[in-house]
């Protein structure tokens, strides 16, 4: 069972951290190979590179709703976002513009959306928000529900790509809907799992 800051009040199926990681892997690989013709590899990047990545870049967030709530996100540098978007749209981008942000939102939508469908087999139906994409420097992110993210780091063309998932039962958050995530000058508490 995963270590969590909450307890299940009744018996219901959960996804273990390992299962979440496996689903992140399979869906990220599927999206990258099918839509971009790219392979992703496990990354063992040093802590400084990971910290640098988390100080900015392009973050695409998608929210989950239903009996389980939370959010999924992908994060990478502006340079990698340009490269990914260029492969998706068969063009070249020198800098992050609206087309790149839109493309990165769609990549997140596909990875997190496919994750959602796979997770739903165990957790029951889940809803998905439309993506929100943010680009900038010197920002950090915090998950509104106070839970750690499960993070998988990928190496894509020598650059870092981070895919994060946070899911908690709705009763833990109460009935009121919560935002998918919030970006603020605050800590992003991640749980990094090597695959």
């Amino acid at each position, binding site marked *: 069972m995963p270590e969590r800051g909450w307890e299940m009040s009744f018996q219901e199926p959960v996804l273990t951290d390992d299962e979440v990681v496996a689903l992140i892997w399979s869906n990220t690989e*599927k*999206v990258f190979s*099918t*839509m971009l013709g790219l392979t992703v590899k496990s990354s063992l990047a040093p802590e400084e590179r990971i910290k640098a990545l988390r100080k900015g870049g392009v973050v695409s967030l998608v929210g989950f709703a239903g009996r389980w709530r939370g959010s999924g996100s992908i994060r990478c540098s502006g340079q990698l976002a340009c490269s990914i*978007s260029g492969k*998706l*749209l*068969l063009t070249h981008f020198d800098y992050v513009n*609206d*087309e790149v942000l*839109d*493309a990165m*939102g*769609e990549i997140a*939508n*596909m990875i997190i*959306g*496919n994750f959602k*469908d796979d997770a*739903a087999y165990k957790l029951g*139906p889940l809803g*998905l928000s*439309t993506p929100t994409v943010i680009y900038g420097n010197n920002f950090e992110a915090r998950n509104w529900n106070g839970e750690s993210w499960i993070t998988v780091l990928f190496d894509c063309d020598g650059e870092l790509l981070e895919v994060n998932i946070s899911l908690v039962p709705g009763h833990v958050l109460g009935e009121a809907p919560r935002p998918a995530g919030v970006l603020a000058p605050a800590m992003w508490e991640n749980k990094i799992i090597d695959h």
Partner: protein
Amino acid sequence: MGLDVLIVDDSAAIRKILLRVLAQTDLEIGDVFEAGDGIEALTILEAKKVGLVLSDVNMPNMDGLQFLTSMRSRPEWNAVPVIMITTEGSQAKVLEAVQLGAQGYVRKPFTAEQIKEKISSCLSVAGK
């Protein structure tokens, strides 16, 4: 006279990819119209006569299933083939789309071949 197509997706990236795929088909494509949600799509349908609709499901303002419901409620649009191209892959949503009158359902991520095959089979069923 070519086949006029309506692409409905809130992502400009996906609309661009589908435009490219349409250009790769053996079909004689006429005008291709783009809409960012179901409301825009209905406005285009009011003004243009299209022979095929490719639509996402999860979109703001009016989602793909609401759009499909509106389309099928109008006799003049009832026979237009609609293919849903979406990340949404839950069985319930697929079933709902089919019951509402979608002729095809393709999950993202997709290959160009998958889209081409689905268009070809939907158009042959529709006798176009």
